[in-house]
């Protein structure tokens, strides 16, 4: 059965373009359109779409409010189509806070120079969101009772951890907030954050995390010394690597190559870590589509690192954590709430 899509945009022009693009994929079916947030809520209740594309700027009711209301009533994967400007980043992150699962640029050119590829990517993303979305997801997530700790690996839990690296993609912004906000300001380790995100978003995102968390969060800069109690967010459009001497590692930011699928890429960062302090590293893979992080974890694991993965139930998109679990790399598979909790207990 085709994935049923609801399109929300105040521009008729855009609704029609999106309808054309989405209808061109036989696996997708446009079941309705709405011109504003109010209509979106009504249509969503009526049509029960599998996935919704949502504009942010709309009359009557904006997209963020609509997302919040829809997620409260009937959790549906919502893909924000937003402007990738600094302003757009803020409102997109607000929309993610409100419960939207993912976002894509409204300017399809930003996805790919080739229009057909861009259109295909939108369709693929919608199908993926609709099929792998977990209703009980992050935004409205109340800290549930801790799930059982599943220890799949032989590696001991009492290893001394000195560095933490967290990689995530779709659903990550909210997941990272949940995890990092549980850490005390006195958290004794540095954290490297790799969140798939465009360059225009990461500065706003780092600022936002910094404001929400007790620990310090900043966008990583080339040459940054890694310090305890600080999280370094990999800048969008580039790669974050650990460089320098073993005793004094520092962050190196390298321009991303256009042919790299992910910029930042979790595998690249994890690989660079493996040159330093594998055994004392804890790598955590949170919600996200695809399998970025698996190879990096594999390398780290071989040299003794600890790997945690988010569990299926709490993952917005159970893709990357699943890849870790399937490859038998995870030492622990935890719910999002537990990841934060157990991370805070590290010393």
């Amino acid at each position, binding site marked *: 059965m085709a994935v049923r899509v609801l399109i929300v945009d105040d521009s*008729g022009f855009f609704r029609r*373009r999106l309808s054309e693009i989405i209808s061109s994929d036989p696996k997708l079916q446009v079941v309705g359109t709405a011109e504003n947030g109010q209509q979106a809520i009504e249509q969503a209740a*009526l049509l029960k779409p599998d996935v919704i594309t949502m504009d942010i700027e709309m009359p009557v009711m904006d997209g963020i409010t609509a997302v919040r209301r829809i997620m409260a009533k009937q959790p549906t994967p919502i893909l924000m189509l937003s402007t990738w400007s600094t302003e757009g980043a803020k409102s997109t992150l607000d929309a993610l806070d409100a419960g939207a699962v993912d976002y894509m640029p409204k300017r399809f050119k930003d996805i790919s120079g080739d229009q057909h590829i861009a259109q295909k990517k939108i369709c693929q993303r919608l199908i993926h969101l609709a099929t792998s979305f977990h209703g009980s997801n992050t935004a409205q997530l109340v800290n549930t009772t801790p799930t059982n700790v599943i220890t799949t690996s032989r590696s001991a839990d009492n290893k001394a951890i000195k560095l933490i690296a967290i990689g995530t993609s779709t659903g990550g912004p909210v997941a990272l907030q949940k995890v990092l906000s549980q850490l005390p300001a006195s958290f004794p380790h540095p954290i490297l954050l790799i969140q798939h995100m465009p360059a225009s978003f990461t500065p706003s995102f780092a600022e936002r995390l910094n404001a929400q968390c007790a620990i310090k969060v900043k966008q990583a800069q080339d040459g940054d010394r890694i310090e305890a109690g600080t999280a370094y967010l990999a800048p969008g459009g580039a790669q974050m690597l650990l460089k320098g001497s073993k005793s004094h590692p520092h962050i190196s930011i390298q321009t991303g190559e256009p042919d790299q699928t992910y910029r930042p890429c979790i595998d690249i960062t994890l690989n660079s870590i493996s040159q330093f302090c594998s055994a004392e590293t804890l790598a955590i893979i949170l919600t996200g589509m695809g399998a970025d992080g698996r190879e990096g974890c594999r390398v780290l694991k071989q040299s003794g690192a600890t790997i945690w993965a988010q569990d299926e139930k709490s993952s917005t998109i159970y893709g990357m954590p699943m890849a870790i679990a399937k490859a038998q790399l995870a030492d622990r598979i935890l719910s999002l709430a537990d990841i934060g909790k157990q991370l805070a207990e590290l010393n």
Partner: protein
Amino acid sequence: MALDTDDEILQDFLVEADEIMEGLNEQLVELETNPKDSDLLNAIFRGFHTIKGGAGFLSLESMVALCHEGEDVFNILRQGERTVDAEMMDTFLKVLDILNSMFEETKSGEYPSPADPAILNHLKSYLTPGAAPSAPPTPAPEPEPEPQPVVEAVSEAADNDDITDDEFEALLDQLHGDKAPGSSADVTSKEEPAAVAAPDNDDITEEEFEALLDELQGKKKASSTTPKEPATAVETESKTFAEPEPKESEVKKEPEPAVVAASTAPPIAAAKVEPAAKPAAAAKQAETSVRVDTSRLDEIMNMVGELVLVRNRISTLETAIEDEEMAKAVNNLAVVTSDLQTAVMKTRMQPIKKVFGRFPRVVRDLARSLKKDINLELRGEETDLDKNLVEALADPLVHLVRNAVDHGIEMPDVREKAGKPRTGQIVLGAAQEGDHILLTISDDGAGMDANVLRQKAVEKGMMDEESASRLTESECYALIFAPGFSMKQEISDISGRGVGMDVVKTSISKLNGVIDIQSEVGKGTILSIKVPLTLAIMPTLMVMLGDQTFAFPLVSVNEIFHLDLTNTNIIDGQQTIIVRNKALPLFYLRKWLASSFNETERPEFEHVVIVNVGTQRIGFVVDQLIGQEEVVIKPLGSMLQGTKGLAGATITGDGRIALILDFPELMDTYARRGY
């Protein structure tokens, strides 16, 4: 590289962008009166945002760049970080003009040329929080980086001491003097954003800017007169949807899941679902529109016209047969035909808003340049009329509104002395009255003095003093429509430019429209225009001249008398007849139009049809009156094309050909000037 103007996506974008631009135009002007209205600010922000989105989709980069800046500024404004001032308004309106010319370029198949960097930088300068709010744009916003460190250094040196605007400007003047010799002139003209924003190499003076805009406007006109008219989308709006019309089901392409879902919902839920379903269905309707080429609509209209003629013919035949069943069928046909006619007419209807929408801007700009305070009120914007009429009315209305602003409303001081509020009021109204549309332009300005007009007419040599003194007041007012009659001593560039009021009258008359003026000195003027709803099908009065049938456009017919024509007077060599104590010129149409005319055997009493021609009332003697009939105007055959005084021909119910009269032209051709 050229754009494919036949591309559906491009056309779709242009149609939507046009609507947004119209909205922006109004909203910006409204913003001037409500600078803090957050709904308005949001709406304008969204307007730029949506155009940017569409332009981005089509890779119209220069449009994206301009809209992006506009969007950014309005984002700041809507967050209350800045408040709009008059100077900003001017800039925004200029941005709108540039956007407009970009659209024109796009429409003609070219990628829009990039906006002047000066205006982009100027917009950017609003984003700098340091810029003093509300103060006129002191050259503080620096597009060029180089002078900035100096400014900072200086202001740091000044330290705690608040630097006054004047000092600051002086300082900047000085700086510019040093940095860019010869550009100080630009800095002094800081009223002009264009000049200020580009103090360096590429400064553009206001005149140059104006010239550029004019040039662009000129281009726009040229391109819009190209024969290839872009197809217009006929949005089946919710209004038309509310009525059960056959076309509805045809227009709908997609199924309506919303409605289906509502109706299949269990009965218990139905009550709950219904209110939600309604707006949902409305959303669906807005989406269910198809683009139809106007020429296709014309074709349909034409065929419906033919059908009307056939119906007329059958009705006439039926009266001879006197068969009851036949009569029923014919009646049925008549009903269906007129329903079809109305439905087709409706597809061609557009709200007068299309034309009215531009007036807030026109009035605002004019009032600003004339230093008058004017408030424009629009009434009945949603009144629908034929698309062709909407277009044809645009120019005359602009002229009349300009006239009201320029000549009607007095200067604020004068108004105050006269005990009136400083702000003048102009009301532009539209309403449907039966089968015609009534447009009114009223102002509470100085009004017109009939005596002044009489005197003027004599001065201009249009008539002698005696005839002038005999003019009624409304005839005096009508003088303003006479060629070469200008009310102002000196010709201002506002309404004294280009075409005169006579052109307005001619174009209104061409639409079978009638103009009426009422005025009172010191109180104001009301100008009303009556035009038929549509141009394609016309209600007429059929008359006979000799053995020929002629059709008078019914909208022009005022009244019909059966009069004793032995009792007429000759005034100024013109035969006249007194009707209710008013002397009306009298003409024998058969003298002009019928081949056989026998002067001697005339009955005492004859039929006189009083016709409105422009602002005048004229009596025409006809031989026989047949009655009212709806006719379809057919152009005259090539042999007769261009015959003066004839608007076209039509086929009457009895299968004969009737010529449709064009009174303004008829009078021009046959009667003496100055009838």
